[in-house]
């Protein structure tokens, strides 16, 4: 069964190579991508089942034993992340397939879109199964370089402007990560995460703190944690709708996943947990306040994305098995729901020609189905029972109440407030876009019959609201309405169905997350699995710089 592990990375990479080998033959490229992504969905589902049934899977690449070779480790968390991200990648791919088929792909150089998309997937999967800090770095780089290409797709002026910010910020975080790896290697003589669990614990606490913070800053930029989240609302919304959806769903979560690994595998006795809780609270608050002041739906969603990262950091900061379990469930929920919302906004953009709320209106009558597709994930993200958002938040708050420290109580309050504000911001967007009389039609109908006082007051308040809110900096001019292909509806409906499934199967899923959280809280288990009986701690002295490891080679494409 171990042979299945590297396939999660190899299938998308091979698919990308194949798709790149047939440029211009769009049908074939789409077929290859579809097959590759579907098989990864099946594969990751299988892995999830296997890992849950029989424990952690460890693959030693090339047969080199663990401390020397590269280990790929799939535990319950990795398997769940793999499955959820594979499903999301497939859903978004179907959506972009529908969009591309309808538009004739005039705006996007399609011969690189599908291969890049697959490489992005390979990077995400590689980061999830990395059992080695340097391999995690390579996974990050694969997905980042693919995301650079996707975010500047087509090379229009506004995408280049947004892309420059994104690329530079990501580069800085990558360099920080690499420097942190260098420092950790200098301090411990290894980059194998299982071995690091043992050796970092032997380091003096000041050095642990230094290494921990360096890694946290590098991952915090990627996870878009306050105050390192400034880049996100500026860069994500300019990309094409499917790209924004997949970025919002997956990329920040890879950062959160890396933080989970850092806090559980590398620094289980970390002294920064309190700091994490404070940061979680600030992320929650600052993010949602940004969302409330936005007029553009894509920007609004980007700010809610930042805000909800706070919930995940909240769970990590509590640093016990139940907290990790709640975070894991919340990540799975948030990946699906955030992606679905962005897909629904993609549909709205096509229907209304813009994502600015000032230009949208009256869509309830024209497109009632889109209204439903936006409404369900909206309630879900806002944490209305019985949806999965409610279950995730309830899980977090229950754990916090058990922890019973002042920070935890504060965070329960902030979390509940943010949940309400999320609902407020999204519901306002929904009402303005769907329930309002159409913007242009408003003026004409007023001309036809004398407007009632209420209608006038409503209109004035609307105007005042629009003046207070911020529109997107690079708002595209209102495009004409385009016909929406069926496949886009099917893909979005499918994602809504997945998000509802997370609610229906919340019982087994939360139980799974609980088991995963327990594994995370006991890093010793993984150490035994990866390194065997000999934990490799005694042979070399930590802090001695050079571990006399003889590694054959590090394959950058691994």
């Amino acid at each position, binding site marked *: 069964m171990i042979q299945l592990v590297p396939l999660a990375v190899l299938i998308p990479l091979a698919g990308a190579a194949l798709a790149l080998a047939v440029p211009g033959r769009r049908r074939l490229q789409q077929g290859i991508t579809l097959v590759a992504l579907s098989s990864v969905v099946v594969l990751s589902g299988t892995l999830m089942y296997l890992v849950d049934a029989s424990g952690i899977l460890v693959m030693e690449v090339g047969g080199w034993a663990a401390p020397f070779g590269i280990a790929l480790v799939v535990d319950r968390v990795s398997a769940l992340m793999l499955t959820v991200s594979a499903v999301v990648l497939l859903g978004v791919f179907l959506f972009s397939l529908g969009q591309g088929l309808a538009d004739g792909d005039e705006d996007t150089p399609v011969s690189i879109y599908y291969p890049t998309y697959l490489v992005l997937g390979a990077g995400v999967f590689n980061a999830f199964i990395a059992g080695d800090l*340097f391999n995690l770095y*390579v996974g990050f*780089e694969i997905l980042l*370089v693919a995301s*650079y*290409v996707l975010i*500047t797709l087509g*090379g229009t*002026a506004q995408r*280049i*402007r947004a*892309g*420059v*910010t994104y*690329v*530079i910020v990501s*580069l*800085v975080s990558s*360099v920080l990560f*690499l*420097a942190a*790896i*260098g*420092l950790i*290697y*200098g301090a411990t003589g290894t*980059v194998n995460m299982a071995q690091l669990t043992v050796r970092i614990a032997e380091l003096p606490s000041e050095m642990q703190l230094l290494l921990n913070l360096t890694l946290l800053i590098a991952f915090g930029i990627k996870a878009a944690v306050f105050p390192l989240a400034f880049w996100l609302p*500026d860069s994500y919304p300019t990309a094409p709708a499917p790209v924004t959806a997949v970025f919002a769903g997956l990329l920040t979560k890879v950062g959160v996943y890396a933080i989970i690994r850092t806090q559980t595998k590398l620094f289980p006795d970390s002294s920064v947990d309190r700091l994490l809780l404070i940061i979680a609270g600030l992320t929650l608050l600052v993010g949602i306040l940004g969302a409330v002041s936005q*007029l553009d739906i894509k920007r609004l969603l980007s700010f809610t994305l930042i805000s909800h990262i706070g919930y995940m950091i909240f769970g990590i900061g509590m640093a016990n098995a139940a907290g990790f379990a709640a975070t894991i469930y919340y990540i799975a929920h948030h990946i699906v729901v955030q992606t679905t919302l962005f897909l629904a906004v993609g549909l709205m953009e096509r229907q209304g020609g813009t994502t600015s709320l*000032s*230009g949208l209106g009256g869509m309830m009558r024209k497109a009632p189905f889109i209204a439903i597709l936006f409404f369900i994930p909206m309630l879900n993200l806002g944490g209305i029972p019985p949806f999965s958002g409610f279950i995730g938040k309830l899980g977090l708050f229950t754990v916090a109440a058990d922890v019973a420290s002042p920070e935890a109580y504060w965070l329960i309050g902030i979390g509940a407030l943010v949940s309400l504000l999320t609902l407020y911001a999204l519901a306002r967007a929904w009402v303005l876009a769907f329930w309002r009389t159409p*913007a*242009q039609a*408003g*003026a004409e109908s007023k*001309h036809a019959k004398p407007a009632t006082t209420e209608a006038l007051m409503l209109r004035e308040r*609307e*105007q005042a609201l*629009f*003046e*207070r*809110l*911020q*529109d997107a*900096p*690079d708002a595209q*001019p*209102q495009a004409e309405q385009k016909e929406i292909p069926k496949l886009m509806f099917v893909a979005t409906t499918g994602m809504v169905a997945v998000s509802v499934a997370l609610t229906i199967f919340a019982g087994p899923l939360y139980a799974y997350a609980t088991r995963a959280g327990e594994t995370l809280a006991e890093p010793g288990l993984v150490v035994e699995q990866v390194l065997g009986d000999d934990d490799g701690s005694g042979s070399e002295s930590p*802090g*001695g*710089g*050079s*571990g*006399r*490891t*003889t*590694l054959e*080679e*590090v394959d*950058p494409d691994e």
Partner: protein
Amino acid sequence: MTMPLVLVAVMVVMYACGVYLMLDRSLTRLLLGFLLVGNATNLLIFLMSGGFGAAPIYGDSSAEEMSDPLPQAFILTAIVITFGVSAFLLALIYRSWRLAHDHDDRVQDDESDLEIATTRALAATEVTDEDLAETLEYDDEDYPESGADIAPSGSAASDASETAGEPKP
């Protein structure tokens, strides 16, 4: 662990220059800054590898004399990645320069940031040709307040004040 002071000094200087260059608005300097910082990091990993010894080739020397090959593998990988990213950055800079060809290769201003910085009220409207065409159908008496309402800000205001049209909501 001993480190040659010269290499440490070189690393520090490279980091300092690289960070300084990365703070510049010019994209080309930014690229140079990134290259410096990237190579300084490679140097950092190299310094972290401990004492220097013989080439780590099996059979040539005993294990005790060898230098640690793992950081060298890291550096090689990092160099390849830096190389790829630099190529992408160059393409990005070229594209940015083409788009702004009569300006230069600087980071473009975020127009809404400028707007926030320079105006008191946010004008959430922009008057397009379509609006101007539409407004001809209405008389000014229908919207007595509309002419005065428009905030005197941005390019939209100058267009709008001439026609006294209602800005598109």
